[in-house]
């Protein structure tokens, strides 16, 4: 359950299945979004993120299960309320700005639909555009706006809806820092009484981990893992989830001893004690996940540098070791050439195919 102490989540999805013909685009998914919380839906294309969002927004009725918004059931296989009667706002993939309306009229649109007068709606819209730093573009049509500007108009329109739940359908570009700030402020400030929630679909791990309070991993319509960004990054349920959430190496080594947060591996001839967050079973040959930051150059393990890639802030090094290739991320520019012998140290591992400490409801 989310940390929202009031108990009633902004969004509650219960056992939701959405079928297209015979295909289950969303398959028995349960998920909550608390007030003031942003949950990212992370998955490759075709994993059902958009379908899930469409079901929540009311574009598509569920085949099974229920959707509750603020303690009110809005969708079940028998009855699905239309989008306009749900308290949700949507930011679309390519922003879906109406080509025939100016930025100002676009943002005023939801306010008018709430019954706002034209003038008041425009004033409010102008104020929103100003807050997003595009007040001077109010009269432009979408064709005359850059991609970033379109994104801000799209967000402004969603904010103008004043909803308690914001849905992001894979915006093609990352929200830039300013826009993100405005949005996150809105989530807490606009609906002070209850706080608003956000559900953000993306296939970009970096964005999901950086933005969300919790991340839900989707694969073929199924919810694979749900947890804080730290959890899904450090404790993926399987290799697929691991690779989805960021770069990782897989090493294979015997585990000779194990405690709560430590275990002993044999790397080549040496015994190495490394940290972990779960009890690792003793095994002849365990598959262990190593994130780039969990190993570093220096130390007593032998290896050979296969390749280096300079990435500005840091450098990625691919090191051939006795337990397999290990990706290491070092701060600063590369100091070794490919082919050179290097030594390395392993500080932490995550055993795959061992259940994570966080359960599907997650802890914060």
């Amino acid at each position, binding site marked *: 359950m989310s940390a929202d102490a009031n108990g009633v989540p902004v969004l509650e999805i219960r056992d939701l299945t959405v079928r297209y013909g015979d295909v289950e685009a969303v398959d028995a998914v349960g998920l909550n979004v608390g007030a003031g919380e942003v949950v990212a839906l992370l998955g490759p294309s075709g994993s059902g993120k958009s379908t899930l969002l469409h079901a929540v927004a009311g574009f598509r009725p569920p085949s099974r299960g229920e959707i509750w918004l603020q303690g009110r059931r809005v969708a079940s296989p028998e009855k699905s309320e239309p*989008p306009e009667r749900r308290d949700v706002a*949507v930011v*679309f*993939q390519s922003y879906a700005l109406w*080509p025939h309306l100016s930025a100002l009229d676009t943002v005023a649109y939801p306010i008018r*639909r709430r019954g706002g007068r034209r003038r008041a709606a425009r004033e409010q819209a102008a104020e929103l555009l100003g807050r997003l730093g595009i007040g001077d573009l109010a009269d432009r049509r979408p064709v005359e706006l850059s991609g970033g500007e379109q994104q801000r108009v799209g967000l402004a329109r969603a904010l*103008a*809806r004043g909803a308690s739940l914001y849905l992001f359908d894979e915006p093609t570009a990352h929200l830039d820092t300013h826009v993100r700030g405005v949005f996150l402020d809105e989530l807490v400030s606009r609906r002070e009484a209850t706080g608003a929630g956000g559900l953000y679909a993306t296939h970009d791990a970096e964005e999901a981990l950086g933005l969300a309070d919790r991340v839900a991993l989707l694969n073929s319509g199924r919810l694979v893992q749900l947890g804080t960004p730290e959890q899904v990054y450090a404790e993926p349920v399987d290799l697929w989830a691991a690779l989805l959430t960021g770069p990782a190496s897989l090493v294979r080594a015997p585990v000779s001893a194990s405690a709560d947060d430590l275990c002993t591996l044999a790397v080549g001839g040496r015994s190495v004690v490394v940290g972990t967050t779960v009890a690792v079973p003793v095994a002849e040959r365990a598959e262990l996940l190593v994130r780039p930051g969990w190993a570093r150059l220096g130390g007593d393990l032998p290896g050979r540098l296969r390749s280096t890639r300079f990435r500005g802030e840091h450098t990625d090094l691919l090191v051939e070791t006795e337990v397999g290739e290990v990706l290491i991320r070092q701060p600063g520019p590369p100091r070794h050439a490919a082919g050179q012998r290097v030594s390395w140290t392993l500080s932490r591992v995550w055993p795959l195919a061992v259940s994570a400490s966080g359960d599907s409801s997650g802890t914060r």
Partner: protein
Amino acid sequence: MAARSTSLGFRAGLIVVSAAVALLVVVPVSRLGYVVWTESAGGLGQVWSRPGLARAVVNTVVLAAGVTVVAVPLGALAALALRRSDVPGRAWWRVAMVLPVLVPQFVLGYSWTQAYARAGFTDTVLGVPWPAVQGPWGVWAVLVVNTVPLAYVFAAVGLAVRAEPDLERAARASGATGLTALRSVTLPLLRPSIAAASVLSFVLTLESFAIPQVMGTPSGFTTVTTLIYRDLSLGSDPASFVEALALALLLVLLTIIVVIPADLVLGPRLRVSRVAVTEGAPVEQRGGRAGGWIAAALSSYLFLGVVLPVLALVAAALTPAVGVSPRPDHWTLDNFRLVLTARTFDALGRSAGLALVAATALTVLGVAVAVLERRRSGRILGTLVTLTLVLPGSTLAVALLITYGRWIGGTLTLILLAYLAKLWAFAHRPISGALDRLPLGELQSARASGAGPLTAARTVALRPLAPALLGAWLICVVTALHEVTMSSLLYGPGSDTFAVIVLNSQELGRIGPTAALSVLLTLFLVVPALPVWLLIRRLRTSTGATGPAAPRGVADVR
């Protein structure tokens, strides 16, 4: 380099197509004007002040407006309704909506009187006649049925191209009800397509002759085209002939008044290069009965508008003589035997060949104009080719005969030229619509990958455009095969087409053979049309691109 060769190609294309426009449109129409000018000898005033002309002009314009105002919204409604996923069998409905196009106009008009007039099908079977079918209302109704598919196709293409589902979802998610979203988002987006459909439907109604003649004249309802027919029938004296030509030019004038502003205002707006990913309806419905109602409405429309009249026609073809009740024990194939002679097959073959050549050339010409009109210097071409569409077949034929008859009179070439002149706009407008989706980015990337302009067009653009091109081609084949007036006036020894046979049988005055011939012609069209349809559908699903008819997904190009 690329820019230079493109503009070279453009200039060459512009010259070639302009020459074709001059040859097929400008010269013949000017020639008509010249004949009227020199031979009316001050009698033009008499033409305009002729009793009944004002009435006919008003009838024509009101009819065109009345048909447009009803058919276009109906077509658009059908297109909107068929986006709903809860309409049972909607893939088939999409095909069915376009089917009435396959029934020749004169057959449709004729079969309606067979079905609904006094002593018609409904009268003899149910005792419910609709006497007004022979009169302005009948003319209007049949023309509406005949025009709805056109409007449907335009609206459906417009929906696929412009109304991305996300745009409507955005409205719904902003708090708009379905109706408000339709009013404030979908319809404004469709406006250019609807306007284009309106222009074409208006012009086609101005030009329509067979239906007003068959159904309108009995009650004294005249249009400009029936007046022209009358003038030609009495026209062994030069005055009536010139009068007929003057009336035809009046139609051209009416078209200019309507089409030029529409093209100048809408043309550029039609060419918004938005590309859509359509995945059916923006908001899926379930549970309600709306889908069933829509299917019921569509099926009653198709049943009353097309199926019943065609059934009446088949019954007439099977009965030995007029006035014999169409009971099964009276059925005979005599009428079919009568019209199925060696000469019919010869003419049918000739017509089919002519239609195929014409349609192929028209598709090329349609693409040429669609490409060229995107530049300022080529913009007027699209409008010009519409002018010959409005000329009634008889007068266009006369215009071409006067202009080129000296050299190629009586040959199939002259008939071919007439088809090209008449149907150019028919090929051009759907292709032009599809070109909105021409993936400019893809073309550029093909050029950047080393393809010349033609290779780039062939390898990148042809494939996504294929359904549209096939659709245009099919429309042209169908219309050319239906064509009766021009070829029956232009044919010569050894170039008699199917139309000549049809007219001959009609003139014999026996409904049976005419009905049999109409049934055969319709079958002749439907049988080859179906495989092509399936091919278009295949292409569409495999490319994800949309054809002019019954659009679905659109190539995802950004």
